[in-house]
């Protein structure tokens, strides 16, 4: 598909992408008095939507029955607690891509105190709406993805990316 049947927002080539803001909702808090592990991923998934809007694969992409994006794999590091009402700032760095997939990395910060709260590395795949199977990114998306990749190419690889889970024996 050459062009999207809906307007796409202007491409933001600042690197990393630094557009997503959110706030920790009351219903995201668990009995430990902090944001529950599942809702960190809710917050990160909303940042993934912010990223996908950059290349025209946000809500309209599915609403208009063109396609969907499915997460294949996710890795989260929980670095520090956040509490109810805390403002969040999430930055996004693209690490790699191919014809159907996108590999990227989110970093969640406390927006006013500045500390790193969590990171999320993701593998996302483009899905054809009708067949519900993997498919190449549409042209309008790929053109934009390649520009984003070029803009992010000079960034250092985050140290939390490519992690292997384990207990290191001391």
């Amino acid at each position, binding site marked *: 598909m050459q062009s999207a049947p809906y307007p796409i927002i202007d491409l933001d080539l600042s690197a990393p992408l630094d557009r997503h803001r959110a706030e920790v909702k009351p219903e995201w808090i668990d*009995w*430990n008095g902090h944001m*529950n*592990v*599942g*809702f960190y*991923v*809710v917050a*990160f*998934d909303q940042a993934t939507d912010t990223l996908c809007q950059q290349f025209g694969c946000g*809500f309209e992409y*599915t*609403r208009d029955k063109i396609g*969907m994006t*499915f*997460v*294949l*794999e*996710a*890795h*989260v*590091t*929980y670095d520090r607690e956040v509490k109810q009402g805390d403002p969040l700032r999430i930055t996004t760095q693209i690490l*790699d*891509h*191919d014809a159907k*997939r996108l*590999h990227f990395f989110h970093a969640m910060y406390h927006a006013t105190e500045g500390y790193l709260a969590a990171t999320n*590395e*993701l*593998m996302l795949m483009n899905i054809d709406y009708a067949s519900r199977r993997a498919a190449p990114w549409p042209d309008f998306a790929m053109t934009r993805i390649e520009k984003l990749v070029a803009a992010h190419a000079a960034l250092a690889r985050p140290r939390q*990316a*490519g*992690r*292997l*889970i*384990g*207990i290191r*024996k001391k």
Partner: protein
Amino acid sequence: MLDSLPYELPELVTRAPLDTHRSTVLPEWVDWNGHMNVAFYVSAFDQASGAFMRNMGLGRRYVDGKLGMTFVLETHVTYDREMKGGAPMRFTTQLLACDAKRVHLFHEMYHAEQGYLAATNEAIVMNIDYATRRSAPWPAPVAWRLEAIWETHKTLTRPAKAGRVMGLARR
């Protein structure tokens, strides 16, 4: 380290893997793609971690008694197949490693009726002292139970999806 816990502990299950946890995909977990959203797989797995913790002797009473908490440090999820609203889930949990403060768990989520693997989750969970909110050794009865669990889990084959590093394999 706490020497004892002021509540009765449940009967210890040392069966390996642990396979007691069951759940259902809630309607509010379904997203605009018509399937369980990625985040709620993690919530569902967190409840499976809770089942493992209860078997260790931890759980709501541990927190409500202001004794301690357990925090997830890191998690890795593979999304293998979609789950729709109302789908029944069955979980298995394998203990991959443990030390004085931490457990390394590997969960598998299956569709409980159709039998397929829906997702896996590898997680590191750490014991936290309630007052200081910092890491602390497991309470003594928990350490003892963990040792008994480890004895049966340590002989299990390591799951193929454990220890994954994410990347685009070039074909």
